């Protein structure tokens, strides 16, 4: 592994590891800005969907990958963000207010679910958030005079200072901007005391607590940030689909979001984007493959959830570090070339770590 020797404090404080980072990420942004004029409208829209999944993935990554709290109810936060944004827009509130409002309302919802679940970890938290997601999915469907129930809720086209954000290009640039903002926010959170506290909680609650970290406070903040970012993704998702239906925010979506985090690689912001690329493109890939699969497998309606399930299972069994872990391995192979050791990434053996109170 290459290591960077830091000779000045500014290097330690800087958001980029070294000058090369500015060049590469700058280049990436230039390419992304140029893309809509290069490819067709359909693909631009798909890319926008990918960005929205990435935003939600970053939100969930902060919670699962960095704080070690699992949530199986993030579809509910996506839904809260989407409905808040859409309902406020329908009331005539300008978009520049509704988008942050969606994030704030969802962050507040995150606090509401975060505080009572503070005492839970691992399993209980997963079950509690699953139940929360189930309740919220019902609320979206039944609270008809606000959400429109199963008739759906049309989302108004947003405008910023009189400029309509319509069509594939509009949603593309909007979600790209939000993604860049969210990435910047997450990277800054992670190198602040808050982020370090989150990582400490993930690695060991007991040692974090004994170092003076207030578990309840930081867990609540982590929940709020994660939910807020997911709420922003939800608001954009509303504009992406343009017509909200409550059945979009059920458990399958929560599972897809968690799949982003797991497939991308726990504990890396790059992983959230890699996972989102995967999850956003998989349905298209399946749609293309449907006609060519043998034995009529392609006509099974359950093919998509089953593929998600299968990939999740294979990923946990054989690639627990996800796609970003794989990328690191490839990089390590070439930087260390002829000296690469296979054992360098071997998982530390952990024997049944009991979470049972005894």
């Amino acid at each position, binding site marked *: 592994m290459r290591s960077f020797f830091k000779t000045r404090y500014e290097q330690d404080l800087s958001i980029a590891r070294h000058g090369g980072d500015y060049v590469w990420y700058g280049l990436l942004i230039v390419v992304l800005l140029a893309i809509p004029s290069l490819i067709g409208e359909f693909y631009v829209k798909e890319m926008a969907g990918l960005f929205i999944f990435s935003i939600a993935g970053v939100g969930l990554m902060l919670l*699962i990958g960095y704080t070690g709290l*699992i949530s*199986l109810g993030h579809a509910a936060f996506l839904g809260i963000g989407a409905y808040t944004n859409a309902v406020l827009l329908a009331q005539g509130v300008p978009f520049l207010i509704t988008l942050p409002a969606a994030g704030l309302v969802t962050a507040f919802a995150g606090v509401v679910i975060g505080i*009572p*679940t503070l*005492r*839970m970890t*691992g*399993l*209980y938290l*997963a*079950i*509690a958030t*699953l*139940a*929360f997601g*189930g*309740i919220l999915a*019902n609320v979206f*469907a*039944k609270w008809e005079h606000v959400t429109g129930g199963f008739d759906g809720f049309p989302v108004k086209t947003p405008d910023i200072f009189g400029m309509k954000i319509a069509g594939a290009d509009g949603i593309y640039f909007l979600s790209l901007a939000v993604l860049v903002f969210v990435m910047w926010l997450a990277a800054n959170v992670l190198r602040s005391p808050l982020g370090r506290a989150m990582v400490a909680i993930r690695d060991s609650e*007991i040692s974090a607590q004994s170092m003076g970290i207030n578990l309840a406070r930081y867990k609540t903040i982590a929940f709020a940030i994660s939910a807020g970012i997911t709420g922003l993704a939800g608001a954009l998702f509303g504009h992406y689909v343009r017509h909200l239906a409550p059945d979009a925010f059920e458990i399958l979506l929560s*599972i897809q979001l*968690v799949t982003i985090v*797991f497939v991308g690689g726990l504990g890396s912001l790059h992983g959230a984007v890699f996972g989102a690329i995967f999850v956003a493109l998989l349905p298209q890939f399946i749609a293309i493959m449907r006609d060519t699969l043998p034995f009529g*497998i392609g006509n*099974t*309606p*359950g*093919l998509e*959830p*089953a593929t*998600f*399930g*299968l*990939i*999740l*299972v294979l990923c*946990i*069994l054989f690639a*627990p570090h996800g796609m970003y872990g794989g990328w690191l391995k490839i990089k390590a192979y070439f930087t260390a070339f002829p000296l690469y050791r296979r054992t360098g990434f071997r998982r530390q*053996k*952990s*024997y*049944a*770590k*009991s*979470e*049972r*109170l*005894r």
Partner: protein
Amino acid sequence: MEDAARILQLVVNGAAAGCIYGLIALGFVLIYKATEMVNFAQGEIMMLGAFVAFGLIAKWGVNYWIGTLVAIGITATFGYCLDVVILRRVIGQPQFAVVMLTLGLAFIFRAAAGFIWGYDPVGIETPFTNRTVRFGDIVLGADNVSIIVGTVVLCAVLYVFFSRTKLGVAMQAASQNQLAAYYMGIPVRTIFSLIWAISAGVAAGAGVLLCPVSGIDVNMGILGIKAFAAAVLGGFGSIPGALVGGVLVGVLEQFAGYYLPPGSQDVASNVVLLATLILWPAGLFAQSQRKRV
């Protein structure tokens, strides 16, 4: 009188549904006590068991009782293989890896069942379908009564198995302390696989009992989520707790459906689950002690 009969009707319907939740929750608890894994695919295993019974009884014309027993046997074998092939590999990994693994398996099972048996709801002609039982003035559906009786019988069998047989006691030992059990010569890994088999078998039994009430379809595994409420209410780790919790959740759900606005029946179990976790996380039959650092 009208009201009393109505309430009794609700209680019996609720208890019948609750017995199913209790049986699924029993499966969770058995596996959790032994391996500290939580099987989010338990409801889907119940669905597979019910479909196997459907294949045997409705398609091949096997007698109902024999077909049920064979279906339980096949599903139990499936549970055993599931542990040997997949779940044994993730012992010792973080708990949410197991959660995600079983969730993934649940989706695979659902699609596999849809592929093999189709997505339309089916039913089995059982001895209890569309019959009634009369207790004095009160008329009850035979299907609901059969669920309650079947649950009691299953639990009695399990109780005798765990307290009277050598294998059952070995399972209890392995659940309480793996290392000590291993030193006593108990083959802990095989025991764990057998526990998976038992819990899959119980789930299959629940599936067969459920089919005169709601039929069999691919989405019946959703009940697994309601069974979580039962397990948590019972203290997650207590077998009688799972059953009592199941019945309580089932009855509460019926009352919520009758007295509260529409939609509350669907969320009742989730609300119970969250309320229990927030207010009373140890559950009814608390088992936990303090954590050692």
